[in-house]
C-alpha cells in the first residue's frame, strides 16, 4: 500500500499510457510528464507568491492581502486575471522582436532545468549522465534573456538593471558551480539521480546527507548564498531595486509579459532550491529512517517549500547590499571559500574513515572562514553600510 | 548524403562565414565574433571526426574540442579586454581608423 503511494504518479502514468498503442507509449509518456511539470510549477508559484505576501506582511506588522476569498487565498487568481487582461505596452522606441523574445527565452530556459530533476523515487523525466551540467547550462542561458529585456526596452533604468543583473549572475555562478563540484567529487557522478541515491542511506536512523559533513556544510552555506544572488532575491536584489532603478530590467514590461517574467523568476527559484535540496539535503530521501514510509515526492516538495520559506524569511530580515559590497563579497570571500572547500573535500576523500578526518576538515573550514571574515571586516568592505551622498 | 560529409560541409560553410565576417567588417568586436565562429566550426569538425572515426573510445577528438573551448574562452576574454582598452585610447572600435602604432 505504502509502496503504491510512493509510486502513485509513476503508476498513474503507466496506467494512462497503457490505453495507447505500443509505438506511441514512450512519446505520450514524455508529453504527459512535460505537461505535468508545466502545470505543477505555476500552481506552486501561486502558492509561493501568496505565502511571500502574507509572510512578509506578518514580518512587517501588517496584514498582507486579505480581501479576495477566505483570508485572501484567492489573491493569486485575481492577480493572474488582472495581468492577463491588462494592456500589453511596447515602448515606441523599443526593439519589438527582442522585447517580445526576452520573457519567452527566460521561461523556456527555467522550465528546461526541471527535465533532469528527480522529484521522487523513479520520478525523473530524463536521467542523463551529465544532468548537473545540463541544469547549469540552462541556468546560464537565463542571463541572456535578462540582457535582451534590458537592452530592448531603450530605457536607462532597464539597461542599468540588466547590467547589474548580468554582472551579479556571472560573479555568483562561479561559486555556485564550485560549491556543487564538491558533491560531484564525492559521488563520482554528474547524474542527479545517482547523487540522491548516494545520500539515501541511514546509520543509527540518521541520514547520510552531504550537508552533515564539514565540506558539505560549508558548500551548502556557499550554495545558499550564491543561489540567492543567482535568483536576484533580497539581499541581492540590486537588479530590481525598486528604490533606485524602478524595477530594473522589466520596468518596461506590462501585462502578460510581465507575468511571464515574474513566473520565470519564481520557477527559477524552485529550480535552484530543488537542485540545492538534491545536492545537499538528500533530494527525495526522508530525514529519519523511521519516516521513510512517507512518499518520496512529499519530501522533495517539502524541502523545496522550506527553502522558499527561508528565502522569504531572509527577504524580510536583511537590507539590500551595495554594488561594490556585492562584487567584493563574491570574488574575495565566497570564491576563495569554495576553492578551500574543494581542497577540504579532497583531503576528506584521501584520509579514510575515522574521527581524525572530521576534526581536521572541520578545523580547516572553520579557521579559513574565521580568518577571511576577520580580514574582510577589518578592511571595512563588508562592514556596516556607510552612506555617501551625491557630491 | 554521407552523414560525416554533411557535418563537414556545415563546418566548412560556417568557417567561411566567420572568415568573411572577420575580413570584411570594420568593427573590432565583429572581427572577434567572426573568429569565434571559425573556432566553433573547427570544433564541429573535431566532434564529427570523433563520432565517425574508428576509435571513439580513445576520446581524442572530444578532448581536443574541450580544450579548444577553454582556449576560445580565454581568447575572447583577452581580445575583448584589448578592444575596450583600445577604445579608451582612441574612442573608436573602427579597425580602419586604427592605423597608427602610437597611442
Amino acid at each position: 500500500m505504502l509502496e503504491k503511494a510512493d509510486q502513485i504518479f509513476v503508476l498513474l502514468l503507466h496506467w494512462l499510457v497503457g490505453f495507447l498503442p505500443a509505438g506511441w507509449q514512450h512519446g505520450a509518456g514524455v508529453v504527459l510528464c512535460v505537461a505535468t511539470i508545466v502545470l505543477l510549477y505555476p500552481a506552486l508559484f501561486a502558492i509561493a507568491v501568496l505565502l511571500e505576501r502574507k509572510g512578509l506582511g506578518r514580518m512587517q506588522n501588517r496584514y498582507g492581502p486579505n480581501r479576495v476569498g477566505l483570508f485572501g487565498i484567492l489573491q493569486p487568481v485575481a492577480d493572474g486575471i488582472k495581468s492577463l487582461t491588462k494592456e500589453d505596452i511596447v515602448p515606441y522606441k523599443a526593439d519589438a522582436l527582442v522585447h517580445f523574445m526576452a520573457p519567452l527565452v527566460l521561461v523556456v530556459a527555467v522550465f528546461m532545468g526541471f527535465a533532469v530533476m528527480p522529484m521522487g523515487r523513479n520520478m525523473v523525466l530524463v536521467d542523463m549522465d551529465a544532468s548537473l551540467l545540463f541544469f547549469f547550462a540552462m541556468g546560464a542561458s537565463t542571463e541572456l534573456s535578462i540582457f535582451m529585456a534590458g537592452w530592448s526596452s531603450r530605457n536607462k533604468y532597464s539597461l542599468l538593471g540588466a547590467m547589474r543583473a548580468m554582472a551579479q549572475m556571472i560573479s555568483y555562478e562561479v561559486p555556485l558551480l564550485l560549491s556543487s563540484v564538491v558533491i560531484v567529487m564525492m559521488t563520482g557522478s554528474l547524474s542527479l539521480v545517482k547523487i540522491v541515491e548516494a545520500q539515501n542511506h541511514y546509520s543509527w536512523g540518521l541520514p547520510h546527507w552531504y550537508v552533515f559533513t564539514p565540506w558539505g556544510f560549508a558548500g551548502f552555506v556557499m550554495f545558499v548564498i550564491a543561489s540567492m544572488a543567482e535568483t536576484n532575491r533580497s539581499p541581492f536584489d540590486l537588479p530590481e531595486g525598486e528604490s533606485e532603478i524602478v524595477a530594473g530590467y522589466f520596468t518596461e514590461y506590462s501585462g502578460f509579459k510581465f507575468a511571464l517574467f515574474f513566473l520565470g523568476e519564481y520557477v527559477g527559484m524552485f529550480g535552484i532550491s530543488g537542485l540545492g535540496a538534491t545536492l545537499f539535503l538528500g533530494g527525495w530521501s526522508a530525514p529519519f529512517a523511521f519516516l521513510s514510509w512517507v512518499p518520496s515526492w512529499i519530501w522533495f516538495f517539502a524541502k523545496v517549500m522550506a527553502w522558499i520559506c527561508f528565502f522569504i524569511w531572509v527577504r524580510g530580515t536583511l537590507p539590500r547590499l551595495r554594488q561594490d559590497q556585492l562584487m567584493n563579497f563574491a570574488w574575495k570571500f565566497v570564491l576563495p571559500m569554495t576553492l578551500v572547500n574543494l581542497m577540504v573535500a579532497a583531503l576528506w576523500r584521501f584520509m579514510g574513515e575515522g574521527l581524525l578526518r572530521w576534526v581536521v576538515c572541520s578545523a580547516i573550514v572553520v579557521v579559513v572562514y574565521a580568518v577571511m571574515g576577520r580580514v574582510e571586516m577589518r578592511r571595512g568592505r563588508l562592514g556596516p553600510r556607510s552612506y555617501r551622498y551625491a557630491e | 548524403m554521407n552523414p560525416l560529409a554533411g557535418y563537414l560541409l556545415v563546418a566548412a560553410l560556417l568557417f567561411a562565414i566567420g572568415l568573411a565576417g572577420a575580413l570584411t567588417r570594420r568593427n573590432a568586436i565583429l572581427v572577434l565574433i567572426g573568429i569565434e565562429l571559425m573556432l566553433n566550426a573547427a570544433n564541429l569538425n573535431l566532434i564529427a571526426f570523433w563520432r565517425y572515426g574508428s576509435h571513439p573510445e580513445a576520446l581524442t577528438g572530444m578532448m581536443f574540442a574541450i580544450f579548444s573551448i577553454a582556449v576560445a574562452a580565454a581568447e575572447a576574454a583577452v581580445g575583448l579586454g584589448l578592444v575596450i582598452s583600445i577604445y579608451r585610447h582612441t574612442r573608436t572600435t573602427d579597425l580602419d581608423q586604427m592605423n597608427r602604432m602610437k597611442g
Partner: protein
Amino acid sequence: MSFAFYVVAALTLAGGLAAVLLKNLVHCALALTVAFAGLALLFLQLDAQFVGFAQILVYIGAVAILVVFAILLTRASETPKSSEIFSRTWLAGLALAAAVFAVMGWAVLQAAPGLPHVIAAPTVTVQEIGAALMGRYVLPLEIVALLLTAALIGAVIVAMHEKEGAR
C-alpha cells in the same frame, strides 16, 4: 541524413550569417548566440552530450555575455551608418572566404564516397571523460589551467583603468 540535422544546420548557418551581416552590433551578438545554440544541438546529435552542454555553458553563458558587455562599454550599440559597416577591402575578403570554402567543400565532396557511413553510437560516460582528463590528458589540462589563469589576469590588467598621469 535526418530531417533534424537539416533543421539544426540551417538554424546554425542562419545564425552565423546574421551575426556577420546585421547592422546593429547587439543584434549580431544575439544572432551569434543562436549559432552557438545550434552548434550545441549539432554536438548533441553527434552523441557528444558533455561537449554540447559545455558549449552552452561556456559560449552562451560566458562568451556571449562578454561580447555584449564589450559592445555596451564601447558605445557600439548604436546602429552605425551603412557606409561604415564593411571595410574598404570587403571584396577581397569576401573573395578569399569564398575561395577557402570552395577548396574545403571540394575536398569534402571528393572524399565523401570513401568516408565511413554508419557507426554505432559510442557510449562515453562523463566518468570516462573525467578519467581521461585526469589520466592521459593531464598535461594539456594543467597547461589549459595555467593559460586560463594567465588570460584572467591579463584581461583584467589590459582592461583596467589606467591611473591619471601613469602614461
